[in-house]
């Protein structure tokens, strides 16, 4: 019988696949625990001073909006969101770098620290202010000033009908992103009267008329003074924005493709929570820190966050549809305009002129969209989202209240309202992403039996610890895979109300009477940080450090946290990498992947 046309095609591709796999080596990535780990601050080595890039933003935005969006269904890398971030430690975290500095993930910050964020009292702008230059790009009015200390600030103003709106949002988000670990500028609220402005002689700076024109685009406070967000000039030389795709070619420190960086993928969760719809490369900045001479990567301009659209309150479309959303564009084409997105039927009511519009009900942590798509956000996996949600969940109520306090809103009621909204959005965010994985952290082997007949694995369940899930409805299913020692065990366990959960990993049909301690983890032995990852950096204080981690000695325990009521989608397994240390003590935890 002659083969059909389709069987020929399939046979041809089968052959091609074999050839392709052979040529490509097609081994994929080794397990997380067997990979080298990223090295802290490796991207702060000296480089030659790069050029100051001022790229036209339209081209990459359109490329991402059209090719990026339409190409996704044709990109196997995106099928099933399989491609994980690459700059991961063995415990599914990132190291400190020119991109990210662990803050709340490493220690409990005080509310006061969160309220201050990157700022310090000494850095607060001091009048008089010499107006040196008009603000260039961007839609909010403003100018650059030099204060009495000689420091340079960018003053930006609120829209006339919404005083406090952008300045408060900017300051609050500045604190939240700093707390999470991102590099951000020092943003202050500045209140001044026009007498404190110094206009330079003609030709040396903006004229009095130009300064007045800018002030005419805002409104004075009731006492006649003006309020502005004062963003202190970043230390170092600005070198243009960074992109969310590829690497910067003139920065040899820029190693990982940006879309594969966990910090940039996880940033999606922070951006969604704070409604940072204007996150695009124009609102980022690479700064050359010299000495020693490296690029630090900043997020800046948070004026269009929370309920603020910078020059007006946000509207319901923002956060739910891209500025140019090619799918909605096509949907309207084929339905003759009768397709309506969810936001189009939303009752739109400003919460408060100083807050703008920040939804809770219609906010969806996984479907939130910035105004422009980018490659890093498009690549977000459940693991990336979980990592970002850990940052968000670490911000407690009092910390949020302190950050909101930095915005100096006009009334206690407005501050309380915004705090309540942020808390509600935080809980929604955390629940959504924590439900997509099995959120176990600080895993330890206890009661290890050198004979290898069983052990107790203890861990924290952040789903329960963060309060988004109850112990009563949580069940763990686990499976141990250790081919070398012929162990293929599985079992399940019920969560308890204790801080640390425990599962007895024993051969089928046996029981283990070992009772694990309830003591907090010992940081010196792969200890815990507030949000789960081992303290310190990769290679430092990590369980199993110094041990020879090879595939032969590696066992894997997969664990699923099932909930009642059940998660909306099947949660990912947590993969716990166990190193067989032999007669000395059985297994030790050397890696964790979500």
């Amino acid at each position, binding site marked *: 019988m002659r083969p059909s046309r389709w069987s020929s095609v399939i046979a041809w591709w089968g052959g091609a696949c074999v050839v392709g796999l052979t040529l490509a080596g097609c081994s994929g990535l080794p397990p997380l625990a067997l990979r080298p*780990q990223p090295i802290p*601050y490796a991207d702060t080595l000296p480089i030659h001073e790069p050029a100051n890039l001022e790229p036209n933003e339209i081209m990459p935005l*359109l490329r991402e909006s059209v090719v990026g969006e339409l190409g996704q269904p044709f*990109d196997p*890398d995106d099928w099933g969101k399989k491609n994980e971030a690459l700059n991961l430690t063995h415990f599914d975290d990132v190291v400190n770098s020119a991109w990210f500095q662990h803050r709340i993930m490493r220690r409990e910050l005080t509310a006061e620290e969160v309220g201050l964020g990157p700022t310090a009292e000494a850095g607060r702008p001091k009048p008089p202010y010499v107006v040196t230059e008009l603000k260039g790009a961007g839609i909010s009015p403003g100018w650059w000033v030099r204060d009495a200390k000689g420091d340079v600030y960018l003053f930006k103003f609120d829209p006339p009908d919404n005083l406090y709106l952008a300045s408060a949002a900017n300051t609050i988000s500045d604190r939240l992103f700093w707390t999470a670990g991102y590099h951000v500028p020092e943003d202050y609220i500045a209140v001044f009267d026009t007498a404190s402005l110094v206009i330079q002689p003609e030709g040396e700076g903006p004229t009095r008329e130009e300064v007045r024109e800018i002030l005419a685009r805002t409104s004075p406070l009731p006492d006649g003074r003006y309020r502005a967000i004062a963003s202190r000039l970043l230390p170092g030389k600005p070198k243009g924005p960074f992109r969310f795709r590829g690497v910067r070619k003139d920065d040899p420190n820029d190693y990982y493709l940006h879309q594969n960086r966990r910090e940039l993928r996880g940033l999606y969760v922070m951006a969604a929570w704070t409604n940072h719809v204007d996150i695009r490369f124009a609102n980022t900045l690479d700064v050359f820190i010299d000495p020693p001479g490296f690029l630090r990567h900043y997020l800046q301009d948070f004026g269009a966050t929370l309920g603020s659209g910078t020059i007006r309150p946000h509207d319901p479309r923002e956060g739910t549809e891209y500025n140019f959303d090619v799918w909605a564009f096509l949907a309207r084409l084929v339905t003759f305009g009768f397709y309506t997105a969810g936001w189009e039927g939303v009752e739109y009511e400003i919460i408060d002129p100083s807050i703008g519009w920040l939804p809770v009900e219609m906010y969806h942590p996984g479907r939130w969209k910035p105004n422009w798509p980018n490659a890093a956000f498009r690549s977000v996996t459940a693991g990336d989202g979980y990592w970002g949600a850990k940052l968000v969940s670490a911000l407690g109520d009092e910390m949020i209240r302190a950050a909101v306090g930095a915005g100096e809103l006009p009334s206690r009621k407005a501050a309380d309202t915004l705090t309540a909204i942020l808390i509600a959005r935080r809980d929604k965010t955390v629940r959504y992403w924590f439900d997509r994985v099995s959120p176990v952290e600080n895993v330890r082997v206890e009661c290890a039996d050198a004979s290898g007949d069983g052990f107790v694995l203890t861990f924290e369940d952040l789903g329960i610890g963060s309060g988004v899930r109850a112990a009563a409805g949580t069940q763990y299913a686990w499976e141990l895979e250790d081919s070398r020692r012929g162990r293929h065990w599985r079992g399940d366990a019920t969560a308890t109300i204790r801080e640390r959960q425990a599962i007895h990993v024993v051969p089928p049909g046996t029981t283990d009477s070992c009772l694990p301690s309830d003591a907090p983890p010992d940081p010196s032995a792969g200890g815990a940080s507030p949000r789960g990852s081992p303290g310190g950096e990769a290679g430092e204080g990590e369980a199993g450090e110094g041990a020879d981690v090879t595939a032969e000695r590696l066992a894997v325990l997969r664990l699923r946290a099932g909930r009642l009521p059940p998660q909306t989608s099947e949660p990912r397994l947590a993969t716990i990498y166990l190193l067989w240390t032999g007669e000395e003590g059985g297994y030790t935890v050397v890696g964790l992947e979500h």
Partner: protein
Amino acid sequence: MLVALVLTAAPPAAAQESQEGGPVSPDSADAIRASLQRPPASHPPDERDVVGAPLFVIMLPLRLAAELLSLAAGGVSALLPEGEGPNLYEVLKVWGLELSVRPLGPGAGDAVQARLTRFQPFFVEAAASVILSPGAFRTALGLTNEDQSLDGGFTFRRLTEADFWGVGINSLEADKSDYEWQRAQVGAAGHTRDTATFRFSGGAGWEQNEIREGNNNSLPGIGDTFPLDSLFGAQETVRYVVGGGQFTADFTHLKSLQPRGFKFIGDVAFHGGTGDTDSDFLTLQGEVHGYLPINDRQAFALLGLVETQPSWGRGVPFYYLSQLGGPEFLRGYSTARFRDRDRLTWIVEWRYEAWRELQGRARAEWFVFWDGGTVAPSLGELSDFRYDYGFGLRFADQNGPGAHFFFAWGDEGFRFSLRLISSF
């Protein structure tokens, strides 16, 4: 050893010493970077890349199209206000030079116009179209203020491959032939500004028209297909004094950048033969536009047009006969596919918003349309209507509808058109 230099959680400045204890230079740092054992910078190939190869090829045309679109948009954004990078538009504006796009008459396409207003109220302007037409340009000098303008200028238009199928709605597609039309005009015109509900413009001038062999070697010339004796204007140079005016009653307004309301336009033009040209004719045209919104995003748009050409002497030169077909009327047919002295045509469009810029400064709308129309020797003989349909996309800003493109289908096939301006 080198690796150990950066295997530290210390602040960056402390990680910058070489193994000799001295500072690390950018060049010596390269060796350190090369020695670091790190996770891969990108995902290694796997079976998905094998599957992805043909998909990449499938997507290649889209990628290329988007790249071109991005490049074009990037280039335009460098010209427009508020673009980043060098802004040619702003630089030119400081010098009193304004760039715009305007039509230069039927068949001449959209021309780029530069107007120098540095010495107001006087202005100098020049427009040229070479992309969509073999050549058309216009120069003018004028006076302008807030509400009125008066200009005098010279226009030359040379269409080297104008098509002709004969006269009448039943002219045959197979009779397609071509000719070259050269027209030189001098004249003066006055305009009221576009801010009022009622606007008037009028002008007068002199022109000379000549017809030659067309440049399209794949088509027969008009003399090969039609007896030239039957086509007034085909063999002789024709000169006219021209006078005319246009009256517009505009009851439309923009709401959320969507036109609403009605507009009436009346046109009259008189061509009086001079010298040995024994021909006088009037062109009378009435046009009505209606924009009927369903909501902020959806609307019906209607257009109706009637035109008649009473004449004396040898009548109307064939190139001045009323035309149907092309990017404005009866869009599923070639430009000037049908010609006769009188015409009746209409457009029905369903317009619906596809995109709106977040700040509400621009929008794009899809439109599906149905056109109909006919030409005849007189209004009483209008019959045998032709129809087409299609869809397109139109951009609009606070100045109203602008650049658009469409795909149209008529009895004789499919047509695509891209234009930078829109009058409807």
